[in-house]
């Protein structure tokens, strides 16, 4: 059964997740804070209200799937899996170290509750499409949610999957684009502007809405909207801020893949308290 949290509970959980994201990246002195912090509100909204999953039976075959295609934002996933009881604090505090359940990029072979082995951008929606074919073959009403980054939309394979999903009318497939405007090297607009993603995805036959990806009310409404699909795959473009919640990380390309030092860590903890 879904967790059915209310807005207050979701916002409190998102704050705890932000704290743990910073803790694990600081401890590891490596990882990707920016994209974890931009994505976490959508992820909390989805796990807290919608996903039909069971921490006691992570491999339950009829569970909803969440495919994290931007696998470098793994701290966001580890923080929510901890909140829901899939993993322990010691697991995420050993993030990126030898033998840890919490690998650098999310990996279904290492972590309970992870549905996809990510790390190479552009592949998650295709994997999700395969999961949605399987759900249809099983006559199951389980849904498949996929999250990609906006920089990731530069990968050609993503558009292969967007085209195929519409052709096969996979209305159990839901895409979330974490549109934080920054990729590894710089702002997306300076690396290769991806343009009007809403129009582009719509032109492939999808239903698309655009929301503020940090507003829990909008997130909650968007998830309900995405569930009311009528034969079409559904996409939510979540406009977000990279590094959201930590002043010096917000909209700062240098915190795509850099850990905070001790001083920065203390500032972050103060801001989140």
């Amino acid at each position, binding site marked *: 059964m879904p967790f059915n949290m209310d807005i207050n509970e979701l916002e409190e959980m998102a704050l705890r997740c932000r704290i743990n994201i910073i803790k694990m990246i600081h401890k590891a002195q490596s990882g990707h804070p920016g994209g974890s912090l931009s994505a976490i509100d959508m992820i909390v909204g989805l796990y807290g209200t919608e996903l039909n999953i069971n921490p006691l039976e992570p491999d339950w075959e009829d569970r909803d799937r969440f495919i994290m295609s931007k696998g470098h934002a793994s701290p966001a996933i580890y923080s929510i899996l901890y909140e829901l009881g899939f993993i322990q604090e010691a697991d995420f505090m050993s993030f990126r170290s030898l033998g840890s359940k919490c690998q650098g990029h999310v990996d279904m072979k290492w972590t309970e509750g992870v549905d996809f082995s990510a790390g*190479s951008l552009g592949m998650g929606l*295709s994997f*999700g499409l*395969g999961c949605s*074919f399987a759900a249809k*073959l099983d006559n199951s009403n389980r849904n498949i949610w996929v999250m990609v980054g906006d920089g990731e939309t530069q990968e050609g*394979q993503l558009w*292969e*999957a967007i085209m195929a999903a519409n052709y096969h009318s996979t209305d159990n497939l839901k895409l979330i684009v974490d549109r934080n405007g920054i990729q590894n090297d710089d702002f997306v607009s300076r690396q290769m502007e991806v343009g009007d993603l809403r129009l582009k995805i719509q032109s492939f036959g999808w239903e698309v809405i655009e929301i503020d990806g940090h507003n829990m009310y909008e997130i909650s409404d968007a998830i309900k909207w995405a569930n009311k699909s009528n034969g079409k795959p559904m996409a939510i473009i979540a406009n977000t801020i990279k590094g959201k919640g930590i002043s010096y990380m917000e909209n700062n390309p240098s915190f795509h893949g850099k850990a905070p030092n001790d001083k920065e860590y203390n500032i972050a903890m103060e801001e989140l308290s």
Partner: protein
Amino acid sequence: MSAPSDGGASRDGYGRALIRLAVNPDIVVLEADLGKSTKSCHFRTEFPDRTFSLGIAEQNMMLVGAGLASSGKIPMASTFAIFTERAFEQIRNGIARPNLKVHICGSHGGIHTGSDGSSAQSIEDLAIYRTLPNMTIIHPADDFSAEELTIQVASLNGPSYTRTIRNKVPRSYTINTSKHLEIGKGSLLKEGNDVAIISCGVMVSKSIEAANILEKEGISSTVIDMHTIKPLDENIIDFWSKKCGCIVTAEDHSIIGGLGSAIAEHNSRTNLVPMEMVGVKDRFGESGESEELFKIMSMSTGDIVKAAKKCIERK
């Protein structure tokens, strides 16, 4: 033994196997436009609800297969061998790394593909997939062995790559003899004492022809069909290399990284007997009939005979 004269193309065996596998409701077929060529089209006709057309988009197809496999299905995904290579990183990261049971078939492998020319002649597929942990790699000799091995592939506990061939070749098996094949075990087709010829794919029937020619000259050859390139049957190599004292490998593939390389790697760690490799020697192919190409690229039956004699002299 004499090479049976009836011909068969291994892609036809793959197509027949898919129909036989359909009794398992978890079997699904993925196509990237080339079903008529890879022969998955017969499955599509009979089981359209379990066939997914993904268009000319191989990278997407490979991950769709991974998603299906993660949900308990057994996807059989086919396209030309050369176009599977386009999705190598998808196969590496999306299939082999999480060890998902996606079974890839690359048809039109090798120079034997012929007149389409070098762009369609995959001569490196076996080498690149051999580097991936968890992958089983199969290259059958004819249609009967392809049918049997494809049936077995669907029961593997990890991913696989099967390379099939476009054109007919003399059969090395019958319906009955192919039933004795087993993934991971080399198939002994002829026993002899002077040279062990180990080959795969279209070179198996040529190796039998070469052994017959050598026999007339008083040279006795062992012929092994090494249809499974990975995992390599090291026991059969050890036994026959000791007995014969030298090895000739024959493959329609680059001699860099394929069957010959796999056996040389093993040989260098063990018996270290003289070896000769027949195959594509660090060049691309071109348009032409299969046999014309094999002649100019030193991969004909006569070239296997020459390699055997040279190898015996080096003992």
